[in-house]
């Protein structure tokens, strides 16, 4: 280990944040760029399933809420891209990697939003799972990322409560059709939400280094368990069930036991075979491609203005 490397690791161990101008190992930088960019892409792609119901939201309150949530996600994306740029990465280049399929985003957004109840479930389960991840990441070792997480966590908690409220309202004040809609939505999103924490620790080869660098601070399986433990009481309060016959409280462990995830599905979706992978990427690519002439015009205009100002 070089002296620089040693000093770096000592800072990490002492819980001192690494800042953009500090020396850092190339691997640390690369890992962070990959992780933050994936996180940013996920925020951006994550707007799309919700957009799908934005134009069909059933009343003013829900429409405004949903739009505000989507806007927050866009904001998170921009904020995370900025954190990523402090590591010397270029946003356009990273977005190009997203569009070419070289870099991924959270697989959860490759599942379709098929009913209004999904707007509740996505807030409750998907944002809920994300928060469990992000709460821990508030203590991540890279300063800008850590600060982004603190800010993002606050808004995500708000979204999660809002999502839960959507479902609760339908369960408590809804018709039978609405209640069935909620249960169906939970059935569809339950397992994909569980998968959001990634493979088993034993199948997650990069995790050890990330833990040592304190980029990651808790293992996939531990995070998943935490999420399940906090989610099941909420599920019961809703009056709904999970599509998992093995789910039950384990007095000895002090945790919920749960069934095995279908890892074939997980890897299928990661590989690009989820129901919406192609749609999501096509939508993002189309937006950027069709906007080329607009961005060119903005640059040309800015150049002209600069010239005018210089001449004046």
């Amino acid at each position: 280990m070089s002296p620089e490397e040693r000093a770096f690791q000592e800072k990490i161990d002492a819980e001192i944040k690494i800042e953009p101008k500090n020396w850092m190992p190339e691997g640390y930088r690369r890992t962070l760029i990959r992780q933050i960019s994936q996180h940013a892409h996920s925020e951006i792609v994550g707007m799309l399933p919700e957009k799908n119901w934005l134009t069909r939201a059933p009343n003013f309150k829900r429409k405004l809420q949903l739009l505000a949530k989507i806007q927050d996600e866009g904001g998170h994306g921009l904020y995370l891209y900025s954190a990523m740029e402090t590591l010397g990465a270029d946003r356009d280049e990273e977005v190009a990697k997203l569009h070419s399929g070289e870099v991924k985003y959270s697989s959860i957004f490759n599942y379709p939003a098929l009913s209004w109840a999904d707007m509740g479930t996505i807030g409750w389960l998907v944002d809920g799972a994300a928060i469990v991840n992000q709460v821990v990441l508030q203590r991540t070792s890279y300063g800008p990322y850590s600060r982004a997480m603190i800010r993002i966590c606050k808004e995500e908690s708000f979204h999660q409560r809002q999502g839960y409220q959507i479902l609760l309202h339908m369960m408590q004040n809804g018709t039978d059709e609405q209640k069935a809609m909620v249960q169906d939505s939970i059935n569809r999103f339950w397992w994909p939400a569980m998968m959001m924490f990634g493979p088993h620790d034993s199948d997650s080869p990069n995790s050890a280094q990330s833990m040592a660098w304190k980029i990651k601070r808790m293992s996939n399986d531990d995070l998943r368990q935490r999420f399940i433990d906090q989610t099941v009481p909420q599920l019961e309060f809703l009056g709904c069930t999970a599509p998992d016959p093995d789910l039950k409280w384990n007095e000895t462990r002090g945790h919920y036991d749960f069934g095995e995830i279908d890892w074939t599905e997980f890897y299928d979706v990661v590989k690009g075979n989820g129901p919406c992978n192609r749609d999501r990427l096509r939508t993002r690519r189309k937006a950027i491609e069709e906007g080329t002439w607009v961005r060119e015009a903005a640059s040309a205009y800015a150049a002209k203005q600069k010239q005018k100002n210089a001449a004046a």
Partner: protein
Amino acid sequence: MTQNQALFEYLLRLGDSDLILGQRLCELVGNAPALEEEMAIGNVALDLIGQARSWMTLAAEVASAAEIEGAGRSADDLAFTRDERAYRNLLIVEQANGNFADTMARQYLFDVWHFHLLSALSGSADERIAAIAAKGLKEVIYHLRRSSAWIKRLGDGTEESHAKMQDAIDEIWTYSGEMFIADEVDSLLADAGIGADLNQLRSLWQADVQALLAEATLNCPSMDEYMQRGSKQGLHTEQLGFLLAEMQFLPRAYPGASW
């Protein structure tokens, strides 16, 4: 026509135009030329739908208090269960998004009108209207600044963007004249100091638009061109029906359900 009837109608017009333009902008989420633009479009949509809600809430109050047609309906009822022929939004806001120049031409011509309208209504004799208008005005100042900037950027950008922007202005122009056509409702409320004077608005709008298009190196079509009209009688273009079918789907499919 009683003053309350006129007021109800007037508030629907305000609310409907805001809502329909907001809905059109919602369609653009995930589909703008840059993330920052997507965010900006979303913000404008959020403002407009919020304003629509305020206007329709007041419309519902007015109708219920005066026991006129529409009494007993909530803002949500007004927005999500009224038919195309009962909708009162300006034709300009229901036009499809088209390309980014089309979107911006529609937005700019509306924003200039909206700005002067809310400026006038901020001084309305009806304090409820004045309050909603004053709050909305702050938002619209930002909308207008942004759409003006894009008209200039695209008009005075590249050859391609200039051509697209000019086409967009020329295409949407025929829907601009309607913003200034006063009917009995407008006259009654303008005379009462409650509504805006559309003639005055017309002059203000014309001066602003002509100046900005000139700055953007764009040709400004004549105000005397043939102008489409009809929204005050609920006579829309064929585009609105499809927009409403989508927007109103859930309340229509589950009548009486609470969400």
